[in-house]
């Protein structure tokens, strides 16, 4: 059993975008704040901090989750991927490319979260249809784009993948 008293800190060891990171945190530190403040990964945005907007979505052990609804200590031992982990060798991920081409972002506040949920959708066994994409997007608020560009961008990558 692990036990940490309120004014103590606990060691957290996680793999983030393939790199092992170790730090000590208070148990009440949210994963979103850990990523931004302890790891300097400010690509993970923080909007509402109660699970509604989706801006803070990252992948933990392959699953898209709200990083504002998880404590950093709960992620101990897991593999995390943030938006910074999408591009490989200086080349954008196909989704990032498609977002750019389809004008799927304006201010970009919601974009990292949406990308992280979309990657999970792409990795499913079956090819998601437009309806499924929209349903996934219900977990994200975008105040700029009206969503059409976002759906188009994801559909484009799904289509390319299925060919």
């Amino acid at each position, binding site marked *: 059993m692990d036990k940490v008293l309120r004014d103590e800190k606990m060691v957290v060891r996680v793999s983030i975008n393939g790199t092992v990171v170790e730090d000590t945190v208070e148990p009440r530190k949210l994963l979103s704040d850990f990523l931004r403040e302890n790891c300097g990964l400010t690509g993970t945005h923080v909007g509402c901090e109660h699970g509604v907007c989706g801006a803070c979505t990252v992948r933990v052990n392959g699953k898209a989750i709200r990083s504002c609804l998880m404590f950093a200590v709960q992620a101990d031992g897991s593999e995390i991927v943030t938006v910074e982990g999408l591009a490989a060798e200086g080349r954008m991920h196909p989704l990032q490319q498609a977002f750019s081409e389809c004008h799927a972002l304006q201010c970009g506040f919601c974009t990292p979260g949406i990308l992280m949920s979309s990657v999970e959708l792409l990795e499913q066994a079956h090819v998601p249809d437009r309806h499924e994409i929209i349903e996934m997007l219900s*977990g994200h608020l975008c105040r700029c784009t009206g969503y059409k560009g976002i759906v188009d961008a994801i559909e484009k990558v799904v289509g390319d993948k299925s060919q």
Partner: protein
Amino acid sequence: MKPAPFDYYRPSTLEETLQLLTEFEEEAKIIAGGQSFIPILNMRLSEPGVLVDINQLSDLEYITVEDGYLKIGALTRQRTLELSSLVQQHVPLLSEALPFIGHLQTRNRGTVGGSLVHADPSAEIPLALSVLNAEVVLRSTEEIRTVEIGDFFLTYLTANILPHELLTEIRIPSANILPGYAFVEFSRRHGDFAIVAVASQLAADQDGRIHSGRLALGGIDAVPVVADDAINILIGRQPTDELINQALELALEDADPDDDLHASREYRLQLARVLAKRALLTAYERALKRR
């Protein structure tokens, strides 16, 4: 830092967990998926002294069929339940209800047990399990208690569970699962909490007469409303518009929905009529096909 400071315990066995709950009683709060509780902590609506994190109890994540029950471990993630072929095959009603809960991203973490103990009056899992007449298993260091779902929800956000108890299992008796089913709901946007949700189960005989059924409505009272009287009107008959209307008047007779930000009392009642009719008719059609 958003939440107030707390002592954090992460037990790795059921025994350790129950010990902690007995030791700390009211001072401790359990955290499962955190999808309802962490927002509460972030907003400092609650400042518990001790947090008991049960996420290491992987023994509580399972879905099995045995001894005439479909059994679900309390820590099973909502997304796992949604995608389970065992559930699709045995209790399609549950599979139909799950996509309505929040979003894929919250279902990846939210648990079945957490949703029950949270006891939101318009939550989908409590409603679906009410129409299935499920049982929940509560454990403490002292005893194991089995509670029928009809006795589990006490009022808004309050369930029949003591501070030193842990919900460990949900059991759906196979005998309670009827061939015709439907889960329908209306919310402002997909993934929002339901304004009204309705779950129904029916079975029909060779002549299309209803011989058993259940109906449960969510969002119209402090707990899910199970309308057995309404179903009794339909028993032994083929459902007509008139008969259904009559049944629903009875079902809603005692309902006491609140006016709130999302909908007025009258609107909720009207919505309940429309959705309940839809649920009954869909369940009936399916019951006829699966006679």
